[in-house]
């Protein structure tokens, strides 16, 4: 038999000025099951709370309705008070008499009537409330960072510095990401390698960080605080402990004609290689697809020359099974290559290059030692054209978004070119210059004002080759749409930044959302930019959308703080307002018919399959089961289930039906 206590608050005069609180308390007091009803000036004050605690004991209350302000304001206060009074906190509800009644209506009969209805509704609801226990989940205090670009590096170091363990997974042989390929960086023009390399070394040497390169995530199961991750460590064909990194093998390998990825195809590398001189770890791997031994069965020169006998031709891939508490995704981005542009020659012309290729040409450690030479004949271009928005902001090519970084790096490229080739002419075709950011526009202005880069507002229609020159046909829209034809020696396309290859696949393994361009989706575009909609998985860097280094690093630190906050708890406590699928005795087990429609709508992948087996081990029924750790209590599954097998604690079917009935019917 329910015994409900009702406490009507005046809120000074905030409520009582328009609502007749005395009448409310009195009317409610007459309802069946209401064991105690009273009014008070300030319920949230200490004496107010004491009133509740005492009443619970005195009247043996089984439920409490505080009729005061919005539950969004004081629900925690009164639930806590109830708990202190010896009542399960989830047996307390609030009726919102202030925001939803006294403050929005005139003083009259109707307003008091409405107040009574609001309280009655909560009384009917609370009668059906059940005592709930907060859900506790343990937390494995090891983070995994996927991707070792600058964002991953920053996140890993920040987490490791809070004293927690970090496992970093990088799929290429070295960490560093795109930043390691850059020459100098806007807006300060400091050398990319110089600021990045120390960080890379720090990762390798940090006692809290375990680095796995040449490794990829195979599968992810579990939930926040309790992920189980399988990682495939691809065989490097090398005993990393034995190898000293002397490099002899790489110089002796006869297979030397493999396009060098790090140099964006503008140089060659051997089959056993270290991607670049500052690589971390600085140990070679054998690229089995291109190694003569793996293709033809003979060679093994590297093994012969290796002074420490570190080569292991028969090394298998290794699968690691890891227990992880939180995951930071930092897999970065890629850019479209020049062959994406039919109207600009489909990658047929060697001297039409993309931005990363230009970075390599401008880099002191690049294939030309920092001298800007055009790929076809090594000549220094005297006339160079940069084309911004190449593929970006181009719905016809399937990319409607702005890639954000290219305006800045194009200005940088033009500037670097002018610094190196003083007599040269640099032209930039652009649509808008997007240079919001600290010292960014000043940077672009410098390119124009000091280095006299010729910015032309308009797109280029076509580029073709004639007599070893590139004919660029564009337009200057600021001259009344006048056609412009430039005979150039080299053309650099600021090609669109796109999701890194395999991003979609990884997102599916992680059960996190991604957008139509396969960039990872944040949980909220403004207020949860580093969270995903899966608890415990965070984003850092350009895997979310193209961004520059300062943005990638800020977000990486943000993600690290989220991980640290999670790891500051030994257990996670969650409100138990989650869905449950009913269970009945065998042979029905549940009214669930196993249609799993619910599974398809759950935004959090919280619905699992549970199998019931007969004695002989045969599966007799498969029904839905909610993973409490994952369920966020949205209730979508409840609304959807046709067999009414799921219910939402705190908002159960019987509760909300009771509310509807109470609201609409006379008493």
């Amino acid at each position: 038999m329910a015994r409900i206590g009702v406490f009507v608050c005046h809120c000074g005069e905030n409520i009582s000025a328009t609502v007749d609180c005395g009448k409310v308390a009195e009317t409610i007091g007459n309802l069946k099951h209401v064991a105690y009803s009273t009014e008070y000036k300030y319920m949230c004050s200490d004496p107010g709370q004491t009133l509740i605690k005492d009443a619970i004991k005195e009247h043996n209350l089984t439920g409490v309705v505080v009729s005061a302000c919005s539950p969004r304001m004081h629900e925690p206060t009164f639930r806590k008070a109830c708990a202190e009074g010896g009542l399960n906190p989830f047996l307390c509800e609030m009726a919102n008499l202030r925001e939803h009644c006294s403050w929005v209506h005139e003083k009259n009969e109707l307003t008091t009537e409405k107040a009574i209805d609001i309280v009655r509704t909560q009384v009917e609801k609370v009668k059906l409330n059940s005592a709930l226990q907060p859900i506790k989940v343990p937390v494995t205090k090891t983070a995994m960072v996927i991707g070792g670009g600058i964002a991953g590096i920053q996140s890993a170091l920040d987490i490791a510095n809070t004293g927690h363990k970090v496992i970093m997974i990088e799929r290429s042989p070295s960490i560093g990401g795109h930043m390691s390929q850059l020459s100098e960086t806007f807006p300060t023009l400091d050398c990319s390698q110089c600021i990045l390399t120390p960080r890379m070394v720090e990762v390798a040497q940090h006692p809290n960080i375990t680095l796995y390169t040449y490794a990829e995530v195979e599968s992810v199961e579990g939930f926040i605080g309790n992920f189980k991750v399988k990682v495939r460590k691809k065989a490097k064909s090398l005993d990393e402990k034995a190898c000293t990194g002397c490099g002899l093998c790489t110089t002796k390998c006869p297979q030397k004609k493999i396009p060098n990825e790090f140099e964006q195809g503008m140089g060659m590398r051997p089959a056993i290689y270290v991607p670049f001189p500052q690589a971390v770890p600085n140990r070679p791997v054998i690229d089995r697809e291109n190694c003569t031994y793996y293709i033809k069965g003979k060679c093994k020169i590297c093994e012969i020359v290796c002074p420490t006998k570190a080569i292991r031709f028969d090394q298998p891939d290794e699968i690691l099974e890891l227990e992880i508490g939180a995951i930071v995704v930092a897999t970065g981005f890629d850019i479209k290559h020049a062959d994406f542009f039919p109207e600009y020659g489909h990658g047929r012309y060697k001297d039409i290059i993309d931005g990363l290729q230009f970075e390599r040409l401008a880099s002191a450690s690049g294939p030309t030692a920092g001298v800007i030479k055009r790929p076809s004949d090594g000549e220094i271009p005297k006339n160079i054209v940069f084309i911004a928005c190449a593929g970006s902001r181009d719905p016809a090519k399937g990319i409607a978004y702005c890639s954000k970084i290219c305006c800045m790096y194009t200005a940088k490229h033009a500037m670097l070119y002018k610094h190196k080739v003083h007599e040269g002419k640099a032209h930039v075709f652009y649509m808008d210059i997007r240079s919001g950011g600290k010292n960014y526009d000043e940077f672009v202005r410098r390119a124009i004002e000091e280095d006299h880069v010729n910015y032309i507002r308009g797109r280029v229609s076509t580029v073709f080759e004639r007599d070893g020159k590139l004919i660029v046909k564009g337009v200057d829209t600021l001259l009344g749409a006048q056609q412009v034809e430039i005979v150039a020696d080299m053309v650099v396309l600021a090609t669109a930044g796109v999701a890194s290859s395999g991003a979609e696949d990884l997102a599916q393994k992680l059960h996190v959302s991604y957008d139509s361009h396969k960039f990872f989706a944040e949980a909220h575009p403004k207020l949860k930019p580093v969270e995903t909609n899966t608890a415990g998985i965070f984003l850092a860097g350009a895997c979310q959308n193209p961004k520059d280094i300062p943005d990638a690093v800020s977000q990486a630190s943000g993600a690290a703080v989220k991980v640290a906050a999670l790891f500051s708890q030994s257990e996670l406590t969650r409100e138990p307002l989650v869905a449950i699928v009913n269970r009945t005795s065998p042979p029905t087990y549940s009214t669930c018919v196993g249609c799993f429609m619910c599974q398809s709508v759950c935004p959090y992948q919280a619905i699992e399959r549970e199998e019931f087996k007969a004695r002989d081990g045969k599966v007799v029924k498969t029904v839905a089961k909610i993973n409490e750790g994952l369920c966020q209590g949205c209730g979508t599954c409840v609304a959807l289930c046709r067999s009414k097998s799921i219910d939402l604690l705190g908002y159960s079917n019987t509760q909300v039906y009771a509310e509807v009935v109470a609201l609409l019917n006379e008493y």
Partner: protein
Amino acid sequence: MSHSEHHTERNTLAGSVEKSVEVQAHKCYQCGKCTAGCPVADEMDLPPSMVMRLLQTEEPANDERILRSHAIWLCVTCEMCLSRCPMEIDIPSMMDYLRQRARKEKKVNKKAKNIIAFHKSFLNSIRFTGRLYELGLILDYKRQSLNMTQDISLAPKMISRGKLHLFPTMIKGTAHIARIFKKTRT
């Protein structure tokens, strides 16, 4: 509901272009790529991207400028602009519409006289015979354009190579063709 649906029907050239050929002038972001690749842009008083910009203003005076322009008649419908426009704006269809509109409102640019004369002669030629009668076309065009000396040397050479018929070919369905012209109010 998208915001654009809230707008009231527009009584502007951009509005009618959108209605009749589904070209949304406001999608154009003035990149100029159409003009950059247009083979006749340098002859035009209003290059295609400028036409788009003028449409966007929805100013009667600018609508007038478009309809009275020479450019809409110089466009050769090569479709280069459409095939390269990042926003997939169908300028050629729009040009067709603008030409028809300019004629209807009697705003045809004087310099386009010959171009229209040619198109008219062309249609006249098929209106009566069903097929193109090249000699007839040229004679008719010369009559309309008063451009008597042009191409004088061409005809004899064509005739000598068997490329110019001296008499028209009449198809059987000439009455049918005439009705088609009539029904389409040509």
